[in-house]
């Protein structure tokens, strides 16, 4: 899928906003939100938060995990283990991107946060490359990939899956030689 579609799916996630207007509940097809009271925090899907923000109708509050402290912990964990550590959100990258774009004033040390997110991302990308290589080398037919986030999967998908498909046809044809070696077909 397109990366922008991953973002689109991530925009379904709830985020805390503080509105500056009042409005009764909205009954969307995809669920109800509100009511809205000026100054009273409420949770809405991200796409709605962005739209309200663009009209200067609210401020968006970042989730607890988008802090330097928490991200440094994650980075530390990511560096010290060989496996992928669990990230606070399966849409980690998309959420960070959306928050840094639309909730920047409410994020403390936004630039440092951005750098940390990038660092974590790069460490994991390197890990993903070496584990993909290992996967191909041992010729396993199956792998467990817990804690990989959806964007990571989406970036790796076309290349990795096509490579696995290629390897699979090579292995199938090897079996084909074995099966047909002794008999006419």
């Amino acid at each position: 899928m397109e990366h922008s579609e991953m973002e689109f799916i991530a925009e379904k996630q709830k985020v805390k906003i503080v509105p500056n207007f009042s409005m009764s509940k909205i009954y969307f097809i995809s669920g109800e939100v509100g009511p809205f009271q000026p100054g009273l925090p409420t949770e809405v899907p991200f796409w709605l938060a962005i739209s309200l923000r663009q009209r200067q109708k609210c401020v968006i509050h970042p989730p607890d995990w988008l802090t330097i402290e928490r991200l440094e912990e994650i980075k530390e964990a990511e560096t010290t283990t060989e496996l992928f550590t669990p990230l606070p959100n399966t849409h980690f990258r998309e959420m960070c991107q959306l928050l840094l774009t639309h909730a920047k004033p409410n994020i403390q040390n936004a630039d440092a946060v951005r750098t940390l997110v990038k660092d974590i991302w790069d460490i994991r990308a390197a890990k993903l490359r070496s584990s993909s290589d290992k996967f191909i080398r041992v010729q396993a037919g199956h792998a467990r990939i817990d804690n990989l986030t959806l964007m990571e999967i989406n970036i790796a998908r076309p290349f990795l899956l096509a490579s696995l498909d290629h390897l699979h046809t090579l292995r199938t044809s090897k079996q084909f030689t074995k099966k047909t070696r002794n008999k006419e077909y």
Partner: protein
Amino acid sequence: MDDTLDISGVSEEGEEQITSEQVFQQLEEIWVNERLSPNLMLCRTDITECILEQMQEMEENIARAKKTDLKVSLHQLELDRIRYVLSSYLRCRLEKIEKHAAYLIKKESSDGPSVSRLSPEEFMFAKELTSGVTSHLTASALKHMPKNLQTLNLEDSGKVPNLDHYVFLRVNKAEEGIIVDCETDVQNEDKIDLEVDAQHIMRYKLIENLVENQTVSLI
């Protein structure tokens, strides 16, 4: 204004009530699965028709309402989002149907109506498509060939979905003893258990029915 835009649960005769929210969630689920699976998945007109109805109702409400109203424009945005998911889902199906039309038509008659992959409209489209391709190939080449070479069997020469394609998946419901063949030199079967929330890479063929019954989701 509020009341006109209120959408209550959708009732299906004799079945438990499901809300439009749940229907939309299901649409998103089948959308992603369809996008990531190598073959055409079972047809879910129950979901798409329900969504189309909901969308139409909302469109009518919006058309009646004041354009400048904030709430109306938010509803419009949601509508655009839903239309995107639905269009992308149906478009993806159409692409697969075009690719495997002859195969799907044949399968439809061999599988019987209980496991329909094509909606009646999709079936019609597939039919028109294969007949168009056949008559083009016949008129442009086959009928000018020696008699014994004029046959064309699109089902046989057409493309078949590659069910051996690898996929990423996440487990929704636990399932034990899934066979994943370990294809090293020694061919022996390897079994694994699927734990909830675990993520795997394996060949689609091994879990095809688990995707259809939503035990696992493609990611």
